[in-house]
């Protein structure tokens, strides 16, 4: 399951064959897109059965961020928070999603709770999920164009009229 492979000076721990880092005391595993659902299925059988949160981050303005060794940082990143109630432990799964084909397999069959979260990620970032039963917008009106939480989508601020207000 999680073997410690001695790589150079620090032991790079891997989980199901994917590099694991600890961010501020929290275990984070970097999974690639292909085996995303299988790894989560293995994790679910291994007591990480509650998918607490699924969200995405647009790293357009932060290309060279701290990523585990051997992972090519892409523009989008899917962040899945898993919780194991028996072991009282949390695990964060980070998956790189390239900008060109922003599609991911859906987790709906494994964790039905992620149906709404995936719709929100689609609504806010434009990442579509194959196999999702109802891939439509959830927060924005149906005829809204653009995905608001992307970094290239401006805030939509109406300039305030008082003197010297920031533009």
């Amino acid at each position, binding site marked *: 399951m999680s073997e410690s492979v001695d790589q150079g000076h620090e032991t790079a721990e891997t989980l199901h064959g994917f590099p694991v880092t600890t961010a501020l005391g929290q275990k984070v595993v970097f999974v690639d897109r292909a085996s995303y659902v299988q790894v989560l299925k293995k994790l679910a059988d291994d007591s990480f059965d509650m998918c607490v949160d699924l969200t995405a981050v647009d790293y357009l303005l932060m290309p060279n961020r701290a990523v585990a060794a051997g992972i090519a940082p892409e523009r989008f990143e899917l962040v899945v928070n898993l919780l194991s109630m028996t072991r009282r432990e949390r695990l964060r799964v980070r998956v790189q999603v390239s900008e060109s084909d922003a599609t991911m397999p859906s987790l709906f069959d494994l964790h039905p709770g992620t149906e709404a979260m995936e719709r929100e990620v689609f609504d806010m970032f434009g990442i579509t999920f194959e196999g999702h039963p109802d891939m439509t917008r959830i927060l*924005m*009106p149906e005829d809204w164009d653009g995905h608001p939480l992307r970094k290239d*989508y401006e*805030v*939509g*601020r109406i300039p*305030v009229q008082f003197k010297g207000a920031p533009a």
Partner: protein
Amino acid sequence: MGVVQNVLDDGIAGLQHNFVTARLEDLVKWSRSRSSWGVTFGLACCAIEMMGTGAPHYDLARFGMEVFRASPRQADIMIVAGRVSQKMAPVLRQVYDQMMEPKWVISMGVCASSGGMFNNYAIVQGVDQIVPVDVYAPGCPPTPETLIHAIETLHQLIEDGELMRRREANAGGASVHLELPTEAAASVSVALGTK
């Protein structure tokens, strides 16, 4: 002839203002301002303060707003309590249109009045772009006292407003645009019930 036609078209507002109809006008205005019911349009945090105002401690029933009617058909005042999102704007307009005349709108809280602290793509920057607003209640959320002050201002507005000589201009309800006086000095003299 003229008067009968006016009454048929505009109801009581069709009559000309003269000494005969003056007393009738006062009676109608008094009854409208003393028993105006609000339509429940609670959106966000201001809705909790609106419910708090309706609750026993601040008790809106003292001002005739005994109950918040859910259906717009039986309501007179629409208190827009909370931030109005882009998706909610057409619904707000639909409920406002479905309210019966005479109807008034109180924009409760800075989010409803001007978009408040959320100056972004999702919030309509001010409800007066959608519905004609009569009184703006500042605050985030306005304490129940501020809301009662706004409601009393509106009641005073109803009592002073003209009923008989309504201008043809505003086809909508009796939507008289009026903001709370900004400078603190000229505080609105709210005559509670006395003429």
